[in-house]
């Protein structure tokens, strides 16, 4: 593969060659190792190394990149892919063309995988996903994937994120090329408007209207900014896209640049996502090497450059005006609007600001057409949405479903229901800016789209879905989010700075069973005031968790303030018990307890302090007399 500045003609040649190479590559067995943050934490890099070493030992030549005719006869493809989404089961290894997916793979399994599956075509049952006694060797059959509709994430689990040729072979940069040579800025904006694409970052503002607004500005300098400051705790969709398909984000931004007449783009990425920063920087360098970014792209008059800025740990920077202030090197504090970002954004110039997932949708719309896009999802919220499914659900991970999929389908069909056979209680949607939905039939059958959620006081936010079981106290949950918002409040406006502090104090009081009924009124009043008077969107939505739990889980507040006893918070924590008859007082458990929760004198029966015990089980394992019984699974 020769790196050269592509013209339109040579891009077509390159594209045709890449497609051929992809076709040939697909004839060859491939081992894909998921290299998302989750699987890497589980040891994916070691698995990658082991597979490669194992191949070397056998004298198997391994490809790097796609297969070309000129390549010598090689028989195996080993590559790292983006996030497959099924993080709960990681590290994941995928084998093509069999379509087999192995879960919980360890470096020790590599030898067997290569020997039996890749070379022998045999399935290793122990590494296969099982559910209710049924084995699901093929990824496509696994219930977790079956109900999903992966469009934006499609390439995340199947491509080498760092291979620009593979991206182009799969249709990448074709949308940009089409937009560059065949469409005017106005046409691009109209396409995006007609597609009904709404911002995936929270509010769901129509992207096309935003673009058109920026396009009409007469300023000579305009900017395209990508918000990758995915700050909602419990959300990681954007991270997976940046890591798994970085070129799609670049391409979306380039098309936005064409549409509004901008030559500079910025991607603002959370400091907590180092891998995403690396992958984006690699992708930018590759795109520059091929002349897809830089001056006079593909021989045209259009020039575009993209820079990556790392955040430094401030939730508020997810707000547009705070984010641009941070790119400028200042404190990331929001400002009063209007003027809006499209008129007065980065460096006071007109700026298009969308989040990662929104930009990643753009090339698909231009390439496949407005009709195709509108055929997915609902009338007012077309397309798909990626969600991070977490909490007390069986299958945590990254999912993508058409807009309008119900909460029931997501939690029970894709998520596999609640862990440990517990009862489902609630889903918190949209993190600290969103609200909770209940287990009522009405809520469970609520379609997940921008407008339906708004109708019940929740919002899609960036797409974090935290599932909670019957053992979760909703007051405690509301307090958790309030603590988060209070800590992250930038301090610029009084309602958010002071109001969240007072609300947290009240919630603390309620949790400690020292609250009163009047406290609930005060909470409501404060929430109302903050919502109406805070400066930015984050402040205005900061009280949503409290408001929605007060509305839907009022009885739990009443347990705290009327009964002064919460059946959930005040239940006895499960902990192991020591049988006084069997205990010889040897002190082994006491020494082994990491929490110093066990006390007792030598040769006397020991006891466990339930307050300090974290139920780790170290004492159970350490007792030579079998005197300690583990707690029943709580």
């Amino acid at each position, binding site marked *: 593969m020769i790196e050269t500045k592509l013209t339109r003609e040579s891009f077509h040649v390159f594209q045709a060659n890449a497609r051929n190479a992809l076709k040939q590559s697909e004839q060859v067995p491939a081992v894909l190792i998921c290299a998302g*943050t*989750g699987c890497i*934490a*589980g040891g994916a890099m070691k698995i990658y190394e082991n597979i490669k070493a194992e191949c070397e030992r056998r004298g198997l030549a391994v490809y790097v990149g796609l297969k070309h005719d000129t390549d010598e006869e090689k028989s195996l493809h080993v590559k790292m892919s983006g996030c497959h989404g099924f*993080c*709960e089961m*990681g590290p994941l290894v995928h084998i093509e063309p069999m379509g087999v997916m192995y879960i919980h793979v360890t470096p020790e399994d590599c030898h067997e995988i290569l020997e039996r599956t890749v070379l022998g075509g045999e399935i290793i049952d122990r590494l296969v996903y099982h559910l209710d006694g049924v084995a699901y060797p093929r990824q496509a059959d696994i219930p977790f994937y079956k109900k999903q509709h992966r469009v934006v994430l499609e390439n995340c689990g199947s491509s080498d994120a760092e291979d620009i040729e593979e991206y182009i072979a799969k249709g990448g940069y074709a949308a940009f090329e089409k937009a560059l040579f065949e469409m005017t800025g106005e046409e691009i904006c109209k396409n995006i408007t007609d597609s009904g694409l709404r911002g995936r970052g929270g509010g769901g503002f129509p992207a096309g209207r935003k673009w058109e607004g920026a396009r009409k500005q007469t300023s000579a300098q305009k900017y395209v900014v990508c918000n990758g400051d*995915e*700050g*909602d*705790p*419990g*959300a*990681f969709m954007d*991270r997976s896209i940046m890591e798994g398909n970085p070129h799609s984000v670049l391409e979306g931004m380039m098309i936005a640049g064409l549409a509004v007449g901008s030559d500079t783009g910025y991607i603002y990425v*959370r*400091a*907590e*996502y*180092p891998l995403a920063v690396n992958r984006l920087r690699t992708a930018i360098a590759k795109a520059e090497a091929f002349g897809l970014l830089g001056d006079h792209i593909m021989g045209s008059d259009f020039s575009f450059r993209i820079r990556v*800025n*790392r*955040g*430094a*740990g*401030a*939730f508020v920077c997810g707000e547009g005006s705070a984010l641009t202030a*941070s*790119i*400028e*090197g*200042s*404190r*990331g*504090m929001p400002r009063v609007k209007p003027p809006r970002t499209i008129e007065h954004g980065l460096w006071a110039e007109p700026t298009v600001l969308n989040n990662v997932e929104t930009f990643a949708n753009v090339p698909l719309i231009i390439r496949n057409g407005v009709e195709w896009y509108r055929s997915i999802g609902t009338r007012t919220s077309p397309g798909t949405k990626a969600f*991070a499914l*977490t*909490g*007390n659900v069986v299958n*945590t*991970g*990254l999912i993508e479903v058409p807009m309008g999929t119900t909460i029931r389908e997501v939690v029970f069909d894709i998520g596999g229901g609640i862990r440990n056979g517990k009862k489902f209680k609630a889903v*918190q949607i949209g*993190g600290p800016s969103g609200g909770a939905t209940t287990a009522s039939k009405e809520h469970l059958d609520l379609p997940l789209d921008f407008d339906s959620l708004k109708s019940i006081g929740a919002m899609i936010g960036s797409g*974090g879905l*935290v599932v*909670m079981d019957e053992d*979760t106290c909703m007051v405690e949950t509301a307090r*958790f*989010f309030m603590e*988060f918002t209070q800590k*992250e409040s*930038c301090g610029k406006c009084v309602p958010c700075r002071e109001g969240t502090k007072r609300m947290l104090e009240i919630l603390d009081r309620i949790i400690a069973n020292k609250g009163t009924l009047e406290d609930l009124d005060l909470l409501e009043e404060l929430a109302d005031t903050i919502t109406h008077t805070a400066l930015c969107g984050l402040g205005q939505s900061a009280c949503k968790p409290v408001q929605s739990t007060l509305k839907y889980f009022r009885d739990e507040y009443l347990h705290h303030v009327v009964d002064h006893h919460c059946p959930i918070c005040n239940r006895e924590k499960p902990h192991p018990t020591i049988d006084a008859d069997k205990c010889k007082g040897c002190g082994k458990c006491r020494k082994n307890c*990491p*929490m*110093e929760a066990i006390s007792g004198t030598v040769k006397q029966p020991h006891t466990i302090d339930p307050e300090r015990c*974290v139920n*780790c*089980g*170290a004492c159970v394992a350490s007792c030579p007399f079998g005197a300690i019984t583990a707690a029943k699974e709580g």
Partner: protein
Amino acid sequence: MEDLAHINEICAQFDCDPANLIAIMQEIQAADKYLSEQALTRVAENLHIGTAKVYSVATFYENFSLEPKGKHVIKVCAGTACHVRRSQPIYDAVHDYLGLAGRKKTSADGLFTLETVACLGACGLAPVMTVDGEVHAKMTPEAALALLEEIRAKEERAV
């Protein structure tokens, strides 16, 4: 007076452009583990901006530390998913193990600093903690302490 030559180098690398203030401080912190008063003053001089401006930005962002950190930085995730899957006992266990109290975040031997992080985005692996940036998945208080013991033993062997 500490050696500030690398501060000048880092500033120059970023064209002494005030827009790059955050990136400059990130680089300095990566090298020094924290932002010293001298370093911040030198940055202000190099960028021709006030020390107040530099200080205001350094104190705004969670990631910047104006105090020296321990050799190993432990971050326990306090994000929603980790919270729901009981990350607090992990934090408490580490906190007690390191003998921390009050606002103290660094152990007396200067080996460990304990912090929380809002969300690492590894929610599928909750609860998680990182040691020097490396993510450890599905932690328990017990596993966390074992990990610290291991690091401490390694450090002791090295001495």
